[in-house]
């Protein structure tokens, strides 16, 4: 019985699956040094940047794809991917009027305003957006307002041109090009992304966000984001993403690096909604992402909050290296998988400094035939005296054809450490559903309520507008054609 209800819910609909018909400037398919030179030339990059790419590429060629994650998928054919696709014309946009009306329409449909006068989703908010469409950033809003405070918020490509010293200094500091297979690939072929620098003593007056959209078929998206908070700086950064509905699997391999200096804080929130594939598991994005931050100096803080509902396969571990004394790392995660989606996600908290603290709250929700794994590492290095970690990993199962797995790894090299780990697995109760229905609430709404209640601790960490979006998204991702 329960299964029948749930099965109806498993037939979810992806509402961001449309494509935009737009002329694109594309690289030929495949990957070799010429393609990398092509990308670099397209972006008019300095020699050092090309060198960085080529070095990464040569490394990558000697690496093999990791297989330890609890996911299975057909290995992408790296020669069958288009590594660069940009909507034409690709020139510096002086005003909104110059943005292709097709693009404007696309973002309107997605509920994102590139018009600074209009605010996101109608809620009174103040968010600067960088929009990345396939391989390039098409528009960054509120740039001037931010510049007044000395904040640099622009596309990665622009940063390479205008702030080469900062890029050179920080790029690869947290995720070196040799870090792992997909980070190496990204380092070789990354096309765009956001760059953000908050100078000393500045609290960003608004939330900064990047919206990633994959549109072109046959392409991969390889973006790179770099966020630096200098001493006493603070920023809250949001990331959102969607992709059209396609039968093919598209690869998204991003790198995000965060660096915090003394007393600085970065709060990074993601709502990941890449196309998950259809209900039979056809198509969808392979989301292989390396996100890592370093609390470089004392009393700094990095906080990751993620709501993962999309992608066919997710492989992602936003991590924090707690190098500075008294630094704080946080990871709040909701990962929802439905149909044939697979997610292997979690975090690493590496305690190096003294009195460092980390918190991990992970909420997994599995429905349909999906597989949802939490994988987390808490490492306390020698000398990291009085380190503290608290981890809580909860799994919620909907139906009996899905799987939830927890792989916590704990390595303690300092005796003064205190590490606590709690884990629970529960089923969405027939009793809970019936209780809701007996009060007049239908199945769909009931599931939405229960799931949102279950994720509350994490959703509470999101900025207001995002929390509302995320709640709706969770409900929609489980919604079906209820007969």
């Amino acid at each position, binding site marked *: *019985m329960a299964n029948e209800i749930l099965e109806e819910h498993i037939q979810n609909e992806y509402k961001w699956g449309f494509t935009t018909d737009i002329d694109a400037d594309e690289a030929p398919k495949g990957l070799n040094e010429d393609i990398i030179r092509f990308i670099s030339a397209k972006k008019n990059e300095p020699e050092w940047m090309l060198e960085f790419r080529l070095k990464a590429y040569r490394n990558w060629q000697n690496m093999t794809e990791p297989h330890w994650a609890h996911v299975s998928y057909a290995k992408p054919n790296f020669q069958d991917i288009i590594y660069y696709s940009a909507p034409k014309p690709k020139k510096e946009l002086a005003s909104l009027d110059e943005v292709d009306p097709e693009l404007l329409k696309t973002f309107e449909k997605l509920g994102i305003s590139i018009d600074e006068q209009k605010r996101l989703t109608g809620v009174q908010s103040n968010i600067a957006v960088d929009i990345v469409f396939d391989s390039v950033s098409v528009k960054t809003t509120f740039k001037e307002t931010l510049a007044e405070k000395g904040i640099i918020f622009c596309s990665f490509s622009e940063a390479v041109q205008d702030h080469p010293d900062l890029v050179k200094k920080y790029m690869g500091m947290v995720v070196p090009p040799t870090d792992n297979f997909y980070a190496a690939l990204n380092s070789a072929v990354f096309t765009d992304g956001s760059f953000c620098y908050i100078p000393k003593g500045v609290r960003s007056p608004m939330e900064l966000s990047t919206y990633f959209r994959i549109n072109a078929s046959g392409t991969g998206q390889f973006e790179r984001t770099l966020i630096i908070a200098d001493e006493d700086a603070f920023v809250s950064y949001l990331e959102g993403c969607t992709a059209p509905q396609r039968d093919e699997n598209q690869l998204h391999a991003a790198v995000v690096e965060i660096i915090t200096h003394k007393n600085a804080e970065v709060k990074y929130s993601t709502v990941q909604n890449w196309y998950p594939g259809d209900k039979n598991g056809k198509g969808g994005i392979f989301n292989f992402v390396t996100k890592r931050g370093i609390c470089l100096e004392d009393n700094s803080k990095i906080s990751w909050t993620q709501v993962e509902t999309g992608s066919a396969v997710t492989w992602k571990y936003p991590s924090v290296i707690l190098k500075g004394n008294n630094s704080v790392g946080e990871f709040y995660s909701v990962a929802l998988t439905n149909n044939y989606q697979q997610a292997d996600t979690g975090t690493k908290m590496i305690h190096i400094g003294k009195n460092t603290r980390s918190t991990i709250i992970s909420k997994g929700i599995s429905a349909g035939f999906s597989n949802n794994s939490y994988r987390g590492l808490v490492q306390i290095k020698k000398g990291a005296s009085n380190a503290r970690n608290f981890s809580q990993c909860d799994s919620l199962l909907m139906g009996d054809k899905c799987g939830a797995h927890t792989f916590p790894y704990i390595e303690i090299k300092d005796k003064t450490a205190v590490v606590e780990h709690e884990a629970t697995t529960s089923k969405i*109760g*027939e*009793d*809970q559903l*019936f*209780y*809701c*229905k*007996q*009060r*007049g*609430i*239908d*199945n769909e*709404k009931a599931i939405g*309520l*229960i799931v*949102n*209640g*279950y*994720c*509350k*601790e994490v959703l509470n960490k999101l900025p207001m507008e995002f929390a509302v979006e995320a709640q709706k998204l969770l409900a929609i991702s489980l919604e079906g054609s209820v007969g």
Partner: protein
Amino acid sequence: MISIKNLHASIGEKEILRGINLEVKAGEVHAIMGPNGSGKSTLSSVLAGREDYNVTEGTVTFNGKNLLDLSPEDRAREGLFLAFQYPVEIPGVSNINFLRTALNEIRKYHGHEEMPAKDFLALVKDKSKLVELDSKLASRGVNEGFSGGEKKRNEIFQMAMLNPQLAILDETDSGLDIDALRIVANGVNKLKSKDNATILITHYQRLLDYIVPDFVHILYKGRIVKSGGKELALELEAKGYDEIKAQFESLES
């Protein structure tokens, strides 16, 4: 209001309700008593539409509609309320949010607008007073970490908020301390009107001192084997079920 005729229900191969006949009219209070495992909760679950049970025979008419044709949520929206013997916890979903969703879903079904937030909060204040529910409980997660007695009281609070036509209270009295019992009973009495009806499932005559029933029924092995006025409850209290059991032993189980 509700008319139950020859209702049979089973779970798997096991028949639990074996021909229930019961007629409840607006303005009436019926008490159902009976030994453990006789099928009282099953009857309330079947009426509320729990899908684990198969209705194999019989009819149930609720305000002229075939109740068994309606989904559980539509039964609720039509005015059937069940105070659960074991209220369920829904962590992270505040009582208030839960009730607001429920109330508005019921209103929507009847073609009404959502209740404005201000009116809703006034209603919460009013009804929580009725059952003397601590205002902190109203904003906590639904039954989350509530004590047994608090959960029961919360059921009556929800009933007050949703204002049903027919309320089935499944052992709402068990687990309540003496003061709470009086408060809950008072609440139920205040909510009573000539337009609604109540079915009380209980093991104890004590509750019936506070909420005086018009009829008392004894359910045994899936059938109502005896009905009478409130004195039947007193008789049971004095004699226990031995006589009934002896008389109906022959009902094969």
